[in-house]
Each structure stands twice: as C-alpha cells, then as structure tokens.
C-alpha cells in the first residue's frame, strides 16, 4: 500500500485542533505549554464549547495564549486571573471560564487570589503549569523550584535556609470546601498526555455542572530555563520532579 493511498480524510486519526489558530507559537522548541494548549483546545472542540468558553491568562510565558486559542480571552495582571475569572463567571454564569497560570503567577504573587477563588467555590477551571522556574523573565527561582535546583536567582542551587522550601499548592487547595477536583498531571510522554487530557475533560465537565473549582496542575518542563534539550528535560522531569510532585487525583468530590 502506498503512502498517498492512506492519506485521505476518512483515514485521518490525528490532526491539529480547530480551536488552535494558525499562529506560530512563540514558545521555545519542546515547551510543555504547546502540548497543554493543544489539550485544552481539543477538549473545547470535542465538548462543543467554543462559544461558551472564556479564558484568562495572566503574566508569564502563557500570557499570549490568546494568540493561539481561538476563543474569547482576557490577559490579566500578574497573579490576578482567579479574581478576573470570578467576576466573569459570576456575571456570565452560562460561560465556561478557565485560568491558565504558571507557578510564579499562581503560587507566588497570586497565592491570595488562587486560594480565595477556590474558597468561594467559583465554578471555574484553574490550570496550573508548574515547571519550577520563571520562564518568561529568564529562568529565576520559583516557589516550586526543587531544593538544589540551579536557577538565575539560585545559582548555587536552591538552599532552603536561604530561599525556603518548594511547596505543593495543589494539596493545600484540596483542603478547601469550594474545590471539587484537584489533580496533578504531566505531559512528559504519550501516556501522560492522554491521562492529562482525561483530567482536563473532567475539569470542564465539573465547570459545566457548577461543582466548584477544578484545579489541574500540569508538571511541565522549561527546557530553556533548565538548560536542557526537550527530550532530556522530559526525562529529568520524570526522574526529579515527579518524586516530589506525585501524579494523580488529589481530590475528586464526584467520586467520593
């Protein structure tokens, strides 16, 4: 059988989501953001939510998510996406509202907004991209940077005496009554990506059902910030990040 005989519409098993625009992403080669954007786009497409979804992306590499996702979106100030999303959801309750935040954004400058949106039980989805570093500003230490990990502001490796400890905000948020679903996933391999997509779908379903906050953490790579090749970064993530940030559902009210 020749290749050109296989390539036809009816045999298509995987193609770019219609919810992704034609713009070339500004992310570095191999960046996890591209994969997560894709999963969100596919989920919105499969669930038929293009018109109902409004995204909020605050400061960080993914502030430009609005260039790539073909839905209505707002940029937000650093850390403030959950507050912005709160108002959108309260004033337009028929909309599916999500935030897309990095670790610096959600677990440093925007901790307060994250916790209180969760505590109020806003029926929104919060995506938390944890790559243990500040990517956009050039690789500085994040709250989630592992002990010993070298960054631009911890050049000798993160020393908890000097910088404090990395922390797991997903587990903290799971304690709040307004939160219905907390899961930690990654996109480091095909299997991981397929699982992450199921989690994203579950989160959107919760938002539609008005169950409260769904919090989806994605343990991600920043290969430029980590100064590794994309393939090596994924391997490093599995070997170093996952032991500290274990994968799986931390809370799922629907199943309890």
């Amino acid at each position: 059988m020749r290749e050109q005989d296989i390539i036809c519409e009816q045999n298509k098993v995987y193609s770019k989501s219609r919810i992704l625009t034609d713009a070339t992403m500004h992310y570095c080669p191999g960046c996890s953001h591209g994969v997560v954007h894709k999963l969100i786009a596919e989920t919105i497409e499969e669930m038929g939510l293009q018109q109902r979804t409004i995204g909020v992306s605050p400061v960080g590499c993914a502030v430009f998510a609005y260039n790539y996702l073909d839905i209505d979106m707002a940029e937000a100030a650093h850390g403030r996406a959950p507050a912005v999303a709160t108002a959108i959801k309260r004033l337009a309750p028929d909309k599916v509202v999500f935030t897309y935040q990095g670790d610096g954004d959600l677990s440093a400058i925007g901790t307060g907004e994250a916790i209180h949106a969760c505590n109020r039980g806003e029926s929104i989805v919060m995506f938390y991209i944890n790559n243990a570093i500040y990517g956009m500003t050039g690789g500085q230490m994040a709250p989630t940077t592992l002990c010993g990990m070298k960054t631009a502001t911890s050049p000798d490796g993160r020393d908890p005496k000097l910088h404090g400890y990395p922390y797991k905000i997903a587990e903290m948020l799971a304690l709040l009554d307004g939160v219905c679903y907390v899961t930690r996933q990654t996109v480091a391999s095909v299997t991981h990506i397929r699982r992450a997509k199921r989690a994203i779908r579950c989160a959107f379903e919760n938002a539609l059902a008005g169950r409260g906050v769904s919090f989806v953490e994605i343990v991600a790579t920043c290969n430029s910030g980590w100064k590794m090749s994309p393939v090596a970064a994924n391997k490093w993530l599995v070997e170093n990040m996952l032991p500290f940030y274990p994968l799986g559902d931390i809370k799922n009210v629907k199943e309890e």
Partner: protein
Amino acid sequence: MTKIKGAVVIQTEQCKGCGLCVEACVSNVLTMSVNVNSRGYTYCLALNPELCIGCASCAVVCPDSCITVYRQKEESRRDEE
C-alpha cells in the same frame, strides 16, 4: 490477516525541531533533518514511512501541532477494491 498501515504528514515549516516526536515514535519512522527550515530550525522527517503504524504518538507529543496522522487497515482497503 489485518495489517495496520499509517502515514504522517509533517508541516516542516511549523516544526521547531524539538525532537520529541522522534523520541515518541515506537516504530523508528522519524528522524531530524540535516537542513533547516526558513525559520532556521531543523525539522522532523519520515525517514522510514513504510514502518508507520499510525499510532499518532508523534502528533500527540508535538507542542506545535505540526503532524497529521492517517491510519488504514490493509484488509479493509482490499474490500474496497
């Protein structure tokens, strides 16, 4: 016997040469180019297209959504003929 055949179409101009697809391919179909595209990146190529089983792993891991995957059962094609 049913044999599954696959094919990939790669938007080489969109590719940034991260190599995640090459790593993800279980059938050794893909490799990185020696040349660069107009944006200066090496890009992925189907070196052994006949080995493709259409599993879509390469496309699933691609952060830039450059790969479209097709799959056909050889038997079903014979039926059509």
